[in-house]
């Protein structure tokens, strides 16, 4: 990566010679070689997003009855059915995004099933088995970020609708730079907005005003980088890896400061999103407003991609083993399939517990999955709402939706939930239902990775290894 010493010094001279002035600084490519493709060709970069929820689904109610390009027709006559009797992908039909979504059913995470929830997440996001119970290495989003994200201001962005650390306002994630380095997810839309669209964001067409402090801030980072390098000489292997990551984050901040003084690239759809409220009120049952929080994140992600602030995001809407209590159920006070009254207390229990304790055909769990799919549809619509060229942002990306198991009650790894929205610039087929009979789910990940620009010929390890993508979903 190009060092920034020269430009900073010349800028400083400029500042010292007179007052702060708006000047067009060296072309972007000097700092961001990764962007040259986009700028030179006038095209749009490919992007990758993950939409994750915890605790799986119910395969028998998930799989569309129709295969192929007309899978949405599975739901054509379900509008009049009671909410709880609709198929789990009904919300994609209802929101008219079924033609954007390729549904892959019947595939299996092949890796070892040793730890409930962890094994599925490890298998789907790394293609390999857990290593002694913990995530084995780099997750797919971070591998993609290494390939296509290093040229953007933010290498990747992680978010969640759930808070699991109240002080940090962060949430769960399966995004790992390596086994010891998990990326926490931002759980406050407002904090994320502030971070990437706050005072430091320059809207397209706006001219950056050179703030002499930016150059000084880079000098500060230089000094800190020197400290890190000196410390590195003394440490062992594990700490060296930690400090390497620290140092590369420092470098990324230096580059970001450099870019602040440059003219922003003019992507036509780039703008600042609506500023989300500082907090979203809980309902009278102390439950979060999932729909509003998710919508705020969806808008920020869509516009962060539109502005090329990042090319990779992962939205861990709810975490593995999530105990989130979902909003009101339609099935409240109803009876289950066996005509047994549903335990009234169940309606106030958390998602994970419901997947294990709710008897019968699990009407509450089913409604939760419908709710999850509503949020996925909302995120797809947010991406489709950003025009790019003759199409939309969604055409230039893949928004991959999955969970940490299929049937939550059993943590099943067969019949894995796999949905792909977008075609990654025409590389992937959109709007089909491919029904597999137990193929390796890693094949889908390889297809996605190749489609978004990660140059690999195999994905996964041990039983999860694949050397070929899933041709049925490739163009």
């Amino acid at each position, binding site marked *: 990566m190009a060092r920034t010493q020269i430009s900073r010094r010349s800028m400083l001279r400029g500042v010292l010679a007179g007052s702060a002035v708006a000047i067009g600084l060296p072309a972007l490519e000097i700092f961001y070689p990764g962007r040259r493709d986009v700028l030179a060709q006038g095209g749009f970069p490919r992007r990758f997003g993950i939409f994750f929820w915890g605790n799986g689904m119910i395969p028998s109610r998930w799989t569309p009855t129709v295969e192929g390009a007309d899978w949405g027709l599975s739901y054509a006559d379900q509008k009049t059915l009671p909410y709880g009797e609709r198929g789990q992908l009904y919300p994609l039909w209802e929101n008219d995004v079924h033609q954007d979504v390729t549904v892959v059913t019947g595939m299996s995470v092949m890796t070892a099933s040793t730890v409930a929830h962890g094994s599925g997440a490890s298998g789907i996001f790394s293609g390999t088995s857990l290593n002694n119970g913990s995530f084995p290495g780099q997750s797919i989003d971070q591998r993609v970020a290494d390939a296509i994200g290093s040229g953007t201001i933010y290498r990747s962005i992680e978010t969640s609708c759930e808070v699991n650390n109240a002080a940090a306002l962060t949430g769960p994630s399966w995004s790992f730079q390596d086994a*010891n380095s*998990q990326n926490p997810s931002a759980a406050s839309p407002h904090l994320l907005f502030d971070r990437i669209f706050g005072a430091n964001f320059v809207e397209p067409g706006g001219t950056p005003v050179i703030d002499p402090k930016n150059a000084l*801030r880079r000098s500060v980072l230089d000094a800190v980088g020197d400290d890190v390098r000196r410390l590195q000489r003394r440490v062992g292997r594990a700490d060296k890896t930690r400090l390497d990551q620290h140092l590369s984050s420092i470098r990324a901040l230096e580059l970001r400061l450099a870019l602040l003084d440059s003219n922003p690239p003019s992507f036509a759809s780039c703008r600042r999103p609506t500023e989300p409220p500082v907090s979203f009120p809980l309902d009278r049952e102390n439950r979060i407003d999932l729909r509003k929080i998710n919508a705020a994140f969806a808008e920020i992600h869509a516009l962060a991609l539109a502005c090329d602030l990042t090319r990779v995001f992962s939205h861990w809407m709810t975490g593995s083993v999530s105990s989130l209590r979902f909003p009101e159920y339609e099935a409240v006070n109803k009876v289950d399939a066996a005509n047994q*009254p549903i335990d009234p207390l169940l309606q106030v229990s958390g998602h994970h517990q419901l997947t294990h304790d709710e008897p019968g055909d699990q009407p509450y769990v089913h409604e939760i999955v419908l709710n999850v799919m509503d949020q996925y549809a909302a995120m797809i619509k947010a991406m489709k709402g950003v025009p790019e060229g003759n199409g939309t942002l969604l055409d230039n990306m893949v928004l991959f939706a999955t969970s940490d198991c299929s049937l939550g009650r059993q943590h099943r790894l067969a019949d894995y939930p796999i949905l792909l929205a977008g075609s990654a610039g025409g590389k992937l087929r959109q709007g089909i239902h491919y029904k597999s009979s137990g193929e390796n789910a890693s094949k889908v990940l390889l297809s996605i990775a190749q489609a978004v620009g990660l140059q690999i010929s195999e994905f996964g390890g041990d039983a999860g290894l694949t050397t070929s993508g899933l041709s049925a979903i490739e163009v």
Partner: protein
Amino acid sequence: MTSSRSYLRGLLLAPLLASCVGDIGEPPNVDDPPFVPGAPAFAPAPGTLRRLTSSQYRASIAEVIGPEIIIVTRLEPDRRPPYGNDENGNERGELLAIGAASNGLSASGVENYVNAAYEIAGQALANTTVHSRIVTCTPAGAVDDACVGEIVDSIGGRLFRRPVTPEERAGYVGVARQASTVLGTFDEGLEFALAAVLMSPNFIYRDELGDDVSTGERRLTPHQLATRLSFFLWAEPPDDELRSHADDGSLFDATVLDAQVARMLADDRVRSGVRAFFDDMLALYDLDKLSKSPVAFVQFTPDVRESAREETLLFLEEHIVTDHGDFRDVFTSPRTFVDRRLASIYNVPAPTLVGFDEIVYPSWMERRGLLGQVSFLALQSHADKTSAVLRGRFVRERLMCSKVPDPPPNLNTAIPPPTADNPTLRDRVFDHFQNPSCRGCHQMMDPIGLAFEHFDALGRFRTQEPFTDEAGQVTYHVISTEGSLAGLPYDDAAGLAQILHDHPDVPNCLVRTMYRYATGHVEITSETRQMRALEAAFRASGYDVLDLMHAMATSLGFQLAAPPVLDP
């Protein structure tokens, strides 16, 4: 306490039974762990970099820069180490203190440190009180390298917990010089230099790598030792006195070390140290995630989370620091400290309108000690109902240091719904004891968990469990809380508390957890003798936690560090 302390020292200074580490050489007088049959010779574990936890970071800023500073920036969340075992199959432990010594820092985490540094530096120079505390020289002009150097030495030395090197100082002075030149004032230049110091890895990470002393033995440097002592005992960086003993190297003198540890344990700041340890050991920070339906549990509001955390910490602080109580009594103690919220959950009169005050449970009440508190009963429950598994697992793993294996992932782990024949939780988990694939692990957890069934998912006392039949009729069923642990029968939670009180695994688990917390690593096989020595010391002290802290802080394992593991 004095007598038990000196008895304890006597024990640890007893004649060496075996030469475990060869010649200790200079510095002398570190107690050698005793011989343990079958255990290998003592050898320390490698030292690591330990990232400051959020609370350690905040305490450092308050101590060094000033309590006036308000840090709004959200710092990288503290996390436990990755789940499960490491690549060698060794346990990783579950403490934030271990995670801080092994987890990597995310990109947003580094960004947050940078933001916090500017925030703190800006406030420090804008606040006249803090300004006069920091700027101890009169600058000769906008650029004054000497004055900046003096401030960097003073503030940087305290933030880094060791003297700033000339090379480092030159870097920061250079930053200040450049900034003062561009921006025109001394203070603005200093602000950037301070920010650089605040975002330096030398501040963010506690270097406990150790160093080779003259005889070739590797141990923590006096400054590293002072840092480890201070964060262990006080949860904050070293004060002037401790630092002066590090500066002149006298901390290597066993008598000085012993006196410093005694001084620190007698200081009120040890209360913060005890709180920080138990917050980590009992994972009380998980109370952040406590969520109950206010319809089912009218007393639950989000404020209960902080109340429950405070109750447990105050209870432990009073028992351990104020009373020098026997640690085992935390299970059987009839008293606790509650505010109005908790009093209503416990169904006792509130002792005070504002804040917390002491209550003593009447003898007929079953509620006792640590495990009668909301921080355990509600946190180790589901949102709507109790869980024998969660409660039992917590006791086994966190308090007894046993490892309960994970359930096989492909198993249907659903607990059957209540029926007229099986209305209570004990009836419903019956299969856990019948099914051979469940029994092995669940026998470790469920009997313990079921002992607490007289406390509902929020921690309210009850003797009956309601069951709603098909017709909507509610019937109430008497809850049985009987069981046995280690062959000893109990009738209810109070009886189990007495068995835990007498169980040797419980104090030994405290020793092990505290050693991990203090040193930032999971003990290795060659530290077995050290663990045994500390267990014996704890026992000999009458289970006085402060005495254990004293023994630990002066132990060999606390002071030595093997060289870092380099590339193979």
